[in-house]
């Protein structure tokens, strides 16, 4: 939302918001919010488990879809403002620049998740739906690599995102081990 407002102000008075290189700044800002939303999406079930409010998980679909929307706008902004609608420039980036490859991979992994996010698809896929939506993990890894490989010399952002992702992954592993242990205890 805020990005939209900033863009509107920028169009009225060029240079006022995004500086000398608005194209790069906008693509960057959209990307930043995409990975933040992705991490927020992943953290919802963790938070629900910690505060023991399973209902919070119902938020996940909405936030996840916003993540996808931001990822799409981020890509569109890149394609329009940096690649200047040139498919060959995009393909060159995709095949030769590893950080673009990683970013495109993350986006493509999100597509089936967005498509099957409806209750209808959830019912239709049954148990397979869970397996399919585990694609969020490789997508998050690809997004992190995208940020890491795009970085020049400053790694604070990458460190924070990586740490957040490690905590979220770690929590899931702990939950899984505990579940297995309690199942084992029951069967004895």
């Amino acid at each position, binding site marked *: 939302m805020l990005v939209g407002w900033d863009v509107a102000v920028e169009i009225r008075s060029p240079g006022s918001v995004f500086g*000398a290189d*608005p*194209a790069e700044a906008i693509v960057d800002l959209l990307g930043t919010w995409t990975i933040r939303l992705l991490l927020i999406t992943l953290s919802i079930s963790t938070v629900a488990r910690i505060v023991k409010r399973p209902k919070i998980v119902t938020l996940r679909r909405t936030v996840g879809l916003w993540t996808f929307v931001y990822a799409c706008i981020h890509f569109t902004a890149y394609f329009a403002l940096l690649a200047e609608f040139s498919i060959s420039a995009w393909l060159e980036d995709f095949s030769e620049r590893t950080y673009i490859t990683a970013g495109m991979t993350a986006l493509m992994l999100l597509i089936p998740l967005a498509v099957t996010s409806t209750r209808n698809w959830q019912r239709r896929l049954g148990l397979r739906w869970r397996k399919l939506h585990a694609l969020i993990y490789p997508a998050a890894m690809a997004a992190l690599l995208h940020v890491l490989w795009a970085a020049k010399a*400053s790694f604070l952002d990458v460190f924070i995102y990586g740490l957040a992702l490690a905590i979220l992954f770690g929590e899931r592993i702990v939950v899984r081990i505990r579940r297995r242990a309690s199942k084992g205890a029951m069967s004895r």
Partner: protein
Amino acid sequence: MHVIGAAGLASSVPLAALQAGWMDSKGFTSAPPSEDAVTPRGYATSFNNFYEFGTDKNDPAELGSRLTTEPWNVEVAGLVGKPGTYDIEDLLAGVDLEERIYRLRCVEAWSMVIPWIGFPLKTLLERFNPLGSAKYVAFTTLYRPEEMPGQRSYFSSIKYPYVEGLRLDEAYHPLAIMAVGMYGQVLPNQNGAPLRLVVPWKYGFKSIKSIVRIELTETRPRTTWNLTASNEYGFYANVNPTVHHPRWSQGSERRLPSSLFNGNRKISTRMYNGYEEVAGLYAGMNLRLNY
């Protein structure tokens, strides 16, 4: 050639009188004027890569004011007849300052056109009586973490102080200058006050800012970006549209300021940033290996 005295620095140079035909007469450009029009000053002073103040483009403008540039000493060392520590006032005494309008091509594939005020690097180096054995010149940027927050960062892969260097014949090329001003005024801190290098045929990171040490050496000096990522940034770092950075193309550049919907001003990058007269310095060298 437009020449102004060092004393005239504080006041504004009559730029308008200069701009008409100045570049053509110097032969520094043959590109259409729309492309090589001088970048408005506000953009050149608010969009900077000076990681000592932070990695965001606006960090140097916001945090650079903390830097004290008076007094300023430059240590001259190595293979020179007159080593020592020189006050910047002494270095500038008797120097004829001139305005040079140069394209500035950043390795990140953007560019600007900047009217620098400075003097040939050669005239400075010769004052220290370089010895015959000197083959290279090495420069060091100020290291003062209390005024340069970027030097305190735990998440930077750069080791400070920032160091750069040139081969001596490159340093002696008349296009290589030491700048003390831009846009008719003293250099703002974010642009490398009070003394910086400008080598227009190389990527911007070679043009080291806020210099406190100059050393003449026999062996090739280490350079910061080469130390940070040697596969991405070479010692020479000549602008070359045919040798790509591993993560992006160097074939074109975006002339800043760009605006969102009426023209990104993407232009073709030229060999040696259009300063073909330096080609002789690299005759017979494999530029793909010596990037």
